[in-house]
């Protein structure tokens, strides 16, 4: 189970409304490489990891991704807060307003809604962990695109921080991948799967 802490993992305090940035940033909430996809991908894959090492890492990184969903959601919320209907229309967000008013909704930067197809899972630990490594690299690349598009230090700071988390997670997954490679792929070390 999980317990909530009433705080962000890293502080977010955006004072300047910026609907353009909100529209881009939402992809790290509901896009293919976003935090929601990451959290659900890892927390879904962990059940069929072959040992407690893999189950622990996917649980702990998946849990941290939940905290990143909250950071990104907070950023999108603060960027859109107090926007008038005219401002939303000018930013191309009137269709968002029609569907969701000022509520958050997980989509990518083009407004395509989140889908569970984003959390690829095969049940093969090597394939799944390799997928997770790629996911971290793609999320890092998207954070870099977003940093390029941003001009407010209050936005750039948390984006730099979240980008760095992708790098750490990538390296942890890579270590686990190499461990499983040795454990399962080397000759004479192949162990039967539990199924």
């Amino acid at each position: 189970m999980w317990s909530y802490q009433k705080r962000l993992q890293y502080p977010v305090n955006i004072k300047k409304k910026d609907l353009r940035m909100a529209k881009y940033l939402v992809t790290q909430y509901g896009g293919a490489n976003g935090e929601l996809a990451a959290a659900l991908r890892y927390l879904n894959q962990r059940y069929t990891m072959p040992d407690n090492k893999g189950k622990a890492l996917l649980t702990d990184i998946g849990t941290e991704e939940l905290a990143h969903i909250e950071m990104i959601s907070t950023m999108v919320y603060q960027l859109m807060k107090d926007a008038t209907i005219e401002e939303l229309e000018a930013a191309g967000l009137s269709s968002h307003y029609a569907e969701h008013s000022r509520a958050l909704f997980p989509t990518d930067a083009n407004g395509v809604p989140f889908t569970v197809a984003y959390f690829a899972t095969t049940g093969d630990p090597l394939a799944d962990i390799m997928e997770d490594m790629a996911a971290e690299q793609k999320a890092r690349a998207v954070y870099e695109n977003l940093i390029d598009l941003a001009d407010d230090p209050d936005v750039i700071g948390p984006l730099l921080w979240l980008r760095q988390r992708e790098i750490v997670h990538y390296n942890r997954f890579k270590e686990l991948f190499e461990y499983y490679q040795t454990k399962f792929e080397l000759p004479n070390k192949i162990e039967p799967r539990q199924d």
Partner: protein
Amino acid sequence: MNYYDERDNVNSNMMPFDRQTFSQPAVNMNQNNNSNINNPNGIQPSNNSPVALLTPQEAFIRGNLFGNLYQQYKNYKPAVLTANNEQQRMYLNYAQLAFAAHELNLYLDNYPDDRTIVRLFNDYRTMANQALRAYEEKFGPITITSEQLNQFPWMWEQLNFPWDEGGI
């Protein structure tokens, strides 16, 4: 152990957690892999360990406890967080320690036999728990297991939620 530096005391009239702009020349951490040159107070786990640990304070602003894994983006420097009052100061202290413990948690998932890091994890875990209790005692509950909830009326709503003004 001192987790603060003089940056905690500047800009005292500013809004919460002001970030410095990114105009200063960048420090390229990548050239200093496996060295504590950026981090004179950094704890080095052991001579043969592949990790070069930053202090909880340095790690928290970077989002990375591991100096050898840090990769700077272009010339962007990590934002420096400034605590402007006692509440922010105590909160940052907790957030830094909790982050350091979390980073070691992920590392230990892969390397459960690293005795030095197990010890360090427990140091940070203990200090983070103490810092959390001290914060909650003064400013209200962050966690639903807080002793501060043993009061009337119900205290869980005392602190604002993180996305709202005054939230952390």
